[in-house]
C-alpha cells in the first residue's frame, strides 16, 4: 500500500496522499492521471483496466483494491 500511495502521489502531483482521499478532489485527477494509473496497473500488476474501470474507484483505497485484484478483474479497454 505504501508504495502504491507513493506512486499515486507522484501521479497526482502531491507531496503525499492518504488512502481515504477521494480521487475527484484532486485537481490533477484527469485523463492523463488515469492513463498513468492504467500504465502502472499494466507494469506493476500485469493487469489491463479501461479508463471506465479506473473512474469507478472513488477513493485511493478503492483504486488500490481494484488494481490488486489484478488481471481479469475488469474488462479490457
Amino acid at each position, binding site marked *: 500500500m505504501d508504495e502504491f500511495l507513493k506512486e499515486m502521489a507522484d501521479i497526482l*502531483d502531491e507531496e503525499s496522499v492518504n488512502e481515504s482521499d477521494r480521487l475527484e478532489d484532486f*485537481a*490533477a485527477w*484527469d*485523463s*492523463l492521471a*488515469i*492513463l*498513468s494509473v*492504467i*500504465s502502472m496497473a*499494466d*507494469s506493476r500488476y500485469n493487469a*489491463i*483496466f*479501461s*479508463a471506465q474501470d479506473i473512474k469507478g474507484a472513488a477513493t485511493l483505497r478503492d483504486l488500490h483494491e481494484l488494481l490488486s485484484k489484478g488481471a481479469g478483474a475488469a474488462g*479490457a*479497454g
Partner: protein
Amino acid sequence: MNLVFGQRRIEGLLAVLPSNERRFIDEMEQFDFPIERSIKLKEMMGYDKHRIVDGPVCVSDLAVHGFEHLFAAGTLRKDDIDALVLVTQSPDYFMPPTSSVIQGRLGLKHDMFCMDINQGCAGFLIGLIQAFMLLDQPAIRKVVLVNADVLSRKVSSRDRNSYPLIGDAASITVVGRADDAMPIHANLKMDGTRRDALIIPAGGFREPSGPATCIREADAEGNLRSRDDLVMNGSAVFNFVQVEVPPMIAALLETAQVDKDAVDAFVFHQPNRFMLQKLADKMKIPYAKMPSNIVEHFGNSSGVTIPLALAFNLRDRILGGTLTTVLGGFGVGLTWSSMLLRLGPLDFCDMIEYP
C-alpha cells in the same frame, strides 16, 4: 495471419515534411486545461514540435513534391514505375482515387496499376505487403508505395487529446525484386469490432457533413471537437497496443526463427514516446534499439512514421550497410502488423521539406 515473401527488397525511401513547424509550448493556451497539467503531458508523452500543413495542402501535393525531387535527382525514373500504391486516410477526393490524381499530375505511363488503400498507423506495413504481392506479376518490376496524410486538417485545434501529437507528412518507398534476398516474414491481425477507437464520425455516407456536424462541443475532459473531427479513445488505444503488440512481435520472431538479440532495430509506428518506451520495457528491448523520437520532432503522421523514423534515426546505417529490422504498425481499424526484414544498403534515404 502469417505471411512470407521471397525476393523482395526496399530500394530506397524519401520522407516529405511540411516546412511549417508548430511548438506545443505555443499551443498550450488553446486547450481548456491548466497549464501545469499540459506541461506534465508534454514531459510524459514527449510532445515538443510537430509539422503540420499550412493551409489547404493535400496528400497529392506532398506526394507530387516528393516524386519531382526523386525524378530531378535521377534516383527514380518515371517509366520504371509499374504500380503506385497510396495509403492514406485523407484523400484529395472520395472519387477519383488520389493515386490516379498523383499519376495524372506526374504524367506517368498508362501501363501501370494505381490503387488507394484506406489505412492509418499500420499503413506502412499494409502498403509493403500489398507492394510485395503486386511484385508476383512478372509485368510489375517496381512498385512505389506512397504513405501520406494531412490529418491535422481533421483534428480540432482545441482537442488536447490529439492535436499536440498530430503531424502531416508523406513518404515514398520504392520496392522491387532482388534475387538473393532473404525471406521476409510478416504477420497481420485486424479487429473491426474496435473500429470506434479511432474515428472521424462524420463526413462519409454514414453521417454526411452538414451544419450540425461542424459544431464543436466539449467532451467530459474539456476537449472541444465536432463530429467532423478525428476522435481517439486514448486509453483504449494504449491498452490495445500494450496487449496486442508484444505477442505479435514474439510470434513473428518465433516463426522466422530469429533471436530477439539478433535484431538490430525495432522500428515501430510512433504514437508518442510514452507508449513506445512502455512497449520497449514490456518486451525487454533496449531503448537504443527502438527509436521513439518522431513525435517530439515531427508529430505522428500515421503511416509515415516508420519510414520517417528510419530516415531520421538510421539513415547512415541503412544507406551504407544492412540492418536486421523489425517493423511494427498498429492503429485504426483496429489493425496491427509486423515484419522482419533485412534493410539496406538502400539506393537513397532522405528527408525533404514541402514546399
